[in-house]
């Protein structure tokens, strides 16, 4: 039990895919300008990584090692396309919200990274837990970054103004506060991730590499 729960909990903290393994940075930069997109992306990755890890794990004994990366890529692309088609047919509104993320999920290196590092060598149940754990660890960072970028960049959270109206000059804006447009640009996501890494490593010195 202890070993299995570690699969879920470790990626949330000391083996976080973004801050420790440095996987999935590209999407962390691309879509964290607002909180809602971060949440949608986290849920999508949770779904694809959970199922994908199980599929790869079930196939692990028959996948030829020479073409395993291509096989992994096909599995994830197929999964994403199936989800996309089904949503387009039965939940069109939702599919439009998610369409932007489809390409980002297929190329998300966390997914390939977990297939390669875990699912190829472990059973389906443990692979499922590993997938869920890593997707949650990824989601936590995405949501933290999305929270600060939307709050400081646009003064809103989930699209709702929380600091007042920047044009009418109410709330914080009345005393001279300004939104920091820089926060909306991708490099600032890297800086926010950097700060998270800094906080994390100063709390746990064992994480610092030589």
């Amino acid at each position, binding site marked *: 039990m202890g070993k299995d729960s570690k699969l879920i909990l470790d990626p949330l903290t000391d083996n976080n895919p973004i801050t420790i393994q440095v996987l999935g940075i590209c999407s962390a930069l691309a879509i964290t300008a607002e909180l809602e997109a971060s949440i949608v992306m986290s849920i999508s990755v949770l779904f694809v990584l959970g199922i994908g890890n199980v599929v790869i794990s079930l196939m692990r004994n028959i996948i030829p090692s020479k073409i395993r990366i291509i*096989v992994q890529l096909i599995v994830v692309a197929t999964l994403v396309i199936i989800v996309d088609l089904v949503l387009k047919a039965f939940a069109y509104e939702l599919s439009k919200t998610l369409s932007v993320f489809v390409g980002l999920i297929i190329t998300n290196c966390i997914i390939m990274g977990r297939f390669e590092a875990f699912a190829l060598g472990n059973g389906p149940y443990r692979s499922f837990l590993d997938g869920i754990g890593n997707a949650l660890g990824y989601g936590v960072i995405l949501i933290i970054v999305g929270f600060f970028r939307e709050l400081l960049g646009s003064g809103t959270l989930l699209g709702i103004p929380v600091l007042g109206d920047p044009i009418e000059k109410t709330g914080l804006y009345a005393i001279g506060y300004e939104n920091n447009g820089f926060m909306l640009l991708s490099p600032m996501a890297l800086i926010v991730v950097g700060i998270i890494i800094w906080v994390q490593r100063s709390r746990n010195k064992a994480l610092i590499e030589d």
Partner: protein
Amino acid sequence: MENRTDKNSYTVIFAIGMVIVVGVILAGLFGYTKPMITQNEEIEKQQNILYAMGVNENDETSAVFVSTDVAPEEFGKNITEQIVITVDSSGKILKTQTREEYVAEYNKEPYLIDVKKQQAKAKRGEPRQLPLFVGNKDGKTFYVAPIYGKGLWDAIWGYIAMDENMVVQGAYFDHKGETPGLGANIKQRYFMDDFYGEHLLTEAGVFKGITVAKGNADPKNEDKTDNEVDAIAGATITGDGVTAMIKKDLRLYLPYFETLKGN
């Protein structure tokens, strides 16, 4: 002992098998869902057109379409005429068809005209079909035209509702893959609503379009005759794409609007 999965023959057979399995699954699913997806897309076009002319269920902050089950009915009720204007490469009107004439000739509803294909035709120097949807709501006449262009990553498109003087009466924008939180915000109310009341023409009646402008010193968008709306921070290229598609596509409608005034 060599693992059997390392053999070349196994690898080749596995690859072929995998391609067949994945191909069959995806092709089957695609064939099964295609009619539903096509129908969803047609309804979406109707919703977009209706949205631009103000037939929607917007709440205070977010853009909401009329629901999918009533969209075809609302479309029939609010859109009184679908005109197709055929122009040659110099922009001269060759013919103007009503919906009935167009359906009789092409066996297709005018609102399903693919703007992208028509742009490609114009590029080859062939005549281009311009659909224009005439709507009537609360006694007011709206002329809704589709536009299509390029954003940062992929296609962007929209529908602009105008009055007979080419003053914008409503706008709807959408995109295929703009960055969430930045370019994707062209489909947010705060951006689309800014277009309301903007003039596409100068006072002299020359087509100028509407520029999505940075630092236009009018963030509240009070000046409606400056042919500018305020840009979205961090979405320069998407904004330029919006400017370009408005300029390129709506310009072609000017000769038709001039004939309206002549009557």
